[in-house]
């Protein structure tokens, strides 16, 4: 699967004369910003580390322009048994990347004969997002649990940087909750506190961002496995002072 992806992209690059490259650049710009028909997961995604695992969360809206193509999207994609990724940006790009990384990681895990590290998965994402940064629009948060370092959150924003953070937010709705996350995050929260924190932050973002909405999907990844939850729209905490 990954060979197909890379071969197609390689062909794109090799065939570029300067005029085609300009056209590709324009097309890329059009696709990124102004083409309203590309399905985009302009979204809000979040991941928080706690002692013993991670909590990840996302909204559930995928838009093509003003139309909500899918109001119950699952943006929390399993990459391996205890490694998930949260996807934001172009839906097609992120699906293709996560399929490719799932394949690569599965192969790597079989070769090693043990569960892969979260850092390995994050590096695979970063490798792909950085190498094909001109063609892709993908912001990904990789989170999971492994035996060596416990719960970890790595963020690979658009452009292909990789960094580990105790708490990370991404997607278009994330701008609105930086202040809330900065002020409310504390180190060493419990699992329930993290779930509450994530659900509240996502609700606040969904209330302000037109591209985020629907339900809040949460998942807890720990040594014991993956526990998924859904908070429906009418059960979300509401903060309406005005």
């Amino acid at each position, binding site marked *: 699967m990954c060979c197909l992806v890379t071969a197609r992209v390689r062909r794109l690059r090799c065939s570029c004369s300067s005029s085609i490259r300009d056209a590709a650049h324009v097309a890329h710009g059009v696709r990124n910003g102004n083409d309203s028909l590309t399905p985009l997961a302009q979204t809000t995604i979040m991941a928080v580390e706690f002692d013993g695992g991670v909590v990840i969360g996302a909204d559930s809206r995928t838009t093509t322009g003003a139309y909500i193509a899918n109001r119950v999207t699952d943006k929390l994609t399993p990459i391996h048994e205890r490694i998930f990724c949260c996807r934001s940006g172009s839906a097609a790009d992120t699906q293709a990347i996560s399929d490719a990384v799932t394949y690569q990681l599965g192969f790597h895990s079989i070769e090693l004969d043990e569960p892969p590290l979260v850092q390995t998965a994050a590096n695979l994402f970063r490798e792909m997002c950085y190498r094909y940064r001109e063609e892709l629009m993908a912001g990904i948060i990789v989170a999971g649990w492994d035996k060596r370092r416990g719960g970890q959150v790595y963020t690979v924003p658009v452009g292909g940087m990789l960094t580990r953070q105790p708490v990370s937010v991404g997607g278009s709705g994330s*701008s609105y909750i930086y*202040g809330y996350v*900065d*002020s409310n995050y504390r180190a060493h929260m419990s699992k329930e506190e993290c779930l509450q924190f994530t659900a509240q932050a996502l609700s*606040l*973002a969904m*209330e*302000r961002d037109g591209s985020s909405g629907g339900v809040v999907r949460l998942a807890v990844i720990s040594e014991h496995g993956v526990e998924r939850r859904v908070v429906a729209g009418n059960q979300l905490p509401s903060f309406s*002072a*005005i």
Partner: protein
Amino acid sequence: MNEATQYNLKLERLGYHQFRTMERHPTNYLCKGVSTGTTILAVKFNGGVIIGSDSRASVGGSYVSSKVINKLIQIHDKIFCCIAGSLADAQAVTKMAKFQLSFHSIQMDSPPLVKAAASVLKELCYSNREDLEAGFITAGWDKKRGPQVYTVSMGGMLLSQPFTIGGSGSTYIYGYVDAKYKPDMSREECLQFATNALALAIGRDNVSGGVAHLVVITEGGVEHVVVPGEKLPKFHDE
């Protein structure tokens, strides 16, 4: 023809293009709004309002042209406004509004209503909306309705709200203010709320910074509070 139009025509004849912008910012319409380089807010509390802003003026997001500019302009004794967008436009409009408001106040022989001040700004912003790039938050106290907060957006919309935030840095604190605002706070709670919100926005927005200017307006008068950068509240990653 109202006073504003007459005044404008007179200036045009004299050669002052007061309401033409000096420079046009290239705007990326995908960004949230055209407001650049600031964080401003105003909050109503029990007995008064607090209006606040950061103190940074920047050119193109890469050069800080002033670290201590005061964006809180007193347009009457108990009415302040804070500016977002092009500083040149904002200064021109507030100068005009100050003149009109003082004239109005003399005619009525009483302090102007906060709504009147906001309306004057709105009128100026709306009539010249093609040329201007400035948004305002007006807050103050008057005898008729007590403490009030009005926002005049860049195109000239006027809205009354219990609290409001604006400027480029406001994007990052929408979640925080939505979660933390309560109606009928005390003066101390409100001061803490405003200071925290400004500190959080300054922490995330690179074109907001410097000190936090806060003005507390109540029936008893006006009090200016300045919180220097190192005394702003710090959060978990600082």
